[in-house]
């Protein structure tokens, strides 16, 4: 075992953890980059399939003399990953199956084959299948290579190379990938080599999966590939923004997950996946446009506006008739009145509220919208008089000044069907 960076001023254990975190973050960023394209192309489960299916490839490579972690084993794993993709398509086309079914058959079979090979050659192949599932992030800093006199973990080196290659490929071919992802037929018609672009994505997936597989294990690669990308998709709209946000989320998740695992003495790979899951959940709740909070607030804001406008209009109508305004009955109605008083649209002491000039203008526009809509419905929809009010009650909150002008032009300046006057535009 090499002591890593023993000559650093920080102590060895801290350096080890720093290396492990750096490795996890690098792998996570590479996976998130590829995952962005996988998610928008509905190929999210490909990583799951490849992550399991590379086991026999690794087992055979180790059997013929490759050292775990060596380029030979890495290449064998990537090759097996591509083989998996090819087999999946073969099974799918041979069986006329849904994509998922072909994937399910192929990766479970290859994984089982891998376990059998590992078990049969247990004396010569030192692979622990559960290790391949869990990953061995905590052990990454112990297996080092010397680069320019500095001992660097092998896992970090391979992850950094993979990230650099993938980032370069992504920058070089981004437009083609985006075109193919959103409209493969149009891309083909425009002369984009769609098969090559897709093949490149599959190869990138195999690379990222194998790099991640060594660090966090087979199943958790799925989390790194898909979860940050899915979270980013909820947060932003443009694809390159999505890729960048996904990479940031992945890096943050890797760091926090590792620290959490350290704090609570649990598997780092597991905790990273949990933190990524929390990030996704947070995106579901807090996303600016689509988040549950944003949608809930939007509905609340709308309900509140309707409530306030109805109060203003009720007082205005009471003034018009010369009667007392309807006293608010429910708690929310009282709240709305209080709010309107605070914001200066009602004036006067409690119990004898009157509209302020601003409140009057607002109320007139609501009543104007209401009566214009009644007039329009009365002319065009042939509804009986007593059926005009409910739809207008709803529409009055949705008409703008321009729409009111058009309706007024069409109904021709007559009063509303119940004989009331329509207030003029402010």
């Amino acid at each position, binding site marked *: 075992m090499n002591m890593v960076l023993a000559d650093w001023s920080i102590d060895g254990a801290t350096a080890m953890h720093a290396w492990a975190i750096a490795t996890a973050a690098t792998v996570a960023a590479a996976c998130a980059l590829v995952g962005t394209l996988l998610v928008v192309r509905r190929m999210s489960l490909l990583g799951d399939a490849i992550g399991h299916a590379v086991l026999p490839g690794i087992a055979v490579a180790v059997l013929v003399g490759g050292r775990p972690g060596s380029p030979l084993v890495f290449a064998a794993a990537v090759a097996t990953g591509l083989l998996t993709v090819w087999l999946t398509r073969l099974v799918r086309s041979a069986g006329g199956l849904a994509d998922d079914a072909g994937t399910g058959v192929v990766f479970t079979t290859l994984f089982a084959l891998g376990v059998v090979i590992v078990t049969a050659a247990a004396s010569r192949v030192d692979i622990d299948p*559960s290790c391949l599932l869990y990953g061995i992030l905590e052990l990454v800093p112990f297996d080092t290579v010397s680069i320019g006199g500095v001992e660097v973990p092998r896992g970090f080196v391979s992850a950094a190379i993979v990230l650099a290659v993938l980032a370069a490929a992504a920058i070089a071919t981004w437009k083609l990938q985006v075109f193919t992802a959103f409209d493969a037929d149009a891309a083909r018609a425009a002369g984009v080599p769609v098969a090559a672009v897709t093949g490149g994505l599959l190869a990138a997936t195999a690379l990222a999966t194998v790099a991640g597989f060594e660090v966090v294990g087979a199943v958790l690669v799925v989390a790194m590939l898909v979860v940050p990308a899915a979270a980013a998709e909820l947060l932003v709209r443009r694809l390159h923004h999505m890729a960048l946000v996904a990479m940031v989320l992945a890096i943050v998740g890797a760091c926090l997950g590792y620290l959490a*695992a350290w704090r609570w003495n649990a598997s780092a790979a597991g905790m990273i996946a949990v933190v990524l899951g929390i990030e996704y959940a947070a995106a579901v709740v807090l996303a600016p446009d689509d988040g549950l909070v944003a949608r809930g607030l939007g509905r609340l804001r709308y309900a509140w506006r309707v409530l306030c406008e109805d109060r203003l209009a009720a007082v205005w109508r009471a003034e018009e008739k010369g009667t007392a305004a309807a006293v608010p009955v429910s708690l929310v109605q009282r709240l709305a009145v209080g709010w309107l008083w605070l914001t200066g649209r009602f004036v006067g002491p409690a119990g004898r509220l009157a509209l302020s000039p601003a409140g009057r203008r607002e109320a007139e526009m609501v009543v104007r919208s209401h009566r214009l809509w009644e007039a329009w419905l009365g002319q065009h929809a042939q509804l009986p008089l007593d059926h005009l009010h409910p739809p207008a009650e709803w529409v009055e909150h949705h008409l703008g000044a321009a729409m009111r002008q058009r309706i007024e032009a069409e109904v021709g300046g007559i009063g509303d069907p119940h004989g009331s006057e329509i207030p003029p535009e402010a």
Partner: protein
Amino acid sequence: MTPTGCLAVVPALTHNTLVVAAGVAAVGCAAGVVGSLSLLRKRPLIGDAAAHSTLVGVATAFVLTGRRDLPTLLTGALVAAVAGLATLVLVRRFTRTRDDAATAIVIGVGFGLGIALLSGITARGLPGSAGLEQFLLGHTAALTARDAVVLGIVSVATVTVVLLGLKEATLVAFDADFAAATGWPVGLIDQALVTLVAVRVVVGLPAAGAVRVTALVVSPPVAARQWTDRVPTLLVLGGVFGLVAAVAGVAVSAVVPRMPTGPLVVLSAAAICIVSLVIAPRRGWLARRRQRIAFEPPRS
């Protein structure tokens, strides 16, 4: 094999192997039947999501009860599997996230949480925690006669439920919109199917482990689909293929030393699947090839 070699094998086949074979056969058969339905519903990989969620339940059940007998752990696993699939349904319902990404999220995060919990339990050295992670890979050979009875009863029960609800399930599988329009509770029927898959996966855990139980729900139905276009035949064939794969896997692992049963069951199922894909009449590769040749004009 020498006669003495044969004699050495026979005692090994007597008790434990027979028990295991019976349990795994029941599991394989029922998984094939339920899997056929979820294949028809075009959701073959929900079993995978359920399987990967179960670890959380196993770990939680152990922490809460301190027991590690099969019924306790399986109950925990079942609750977790249903919760995982419910999460899947919620994500589909309330977010823009696509189906496949939602499945992958449940698989990855559910499994990660399970691993984090299990590793935490192991690191704290709670009494009896050693070997809990065996659930991950399955340890068929350690099944007891009582376990096998439990597996058998649950398997019979799930097949019975499938037979009782076959008409409804078929309707939803083939035309969910029509079913909804004619007043069938599609959501409820889907939920029932999902729960059945969760039960199958959980019952399959001790036999095959979390990772390979997916194969039991996917491969036999895919094989069966090649041979028939009729739903009842599909279910029967799915069940038979699952049963044959299970028995073959157990038998081979009993004869070949040190071979794990779970992977062999999966490989048997895969072999049936491959053979079916190649030689099945009409849908098989050979049949379609022959058909193509028959239609091509003879080359001069």
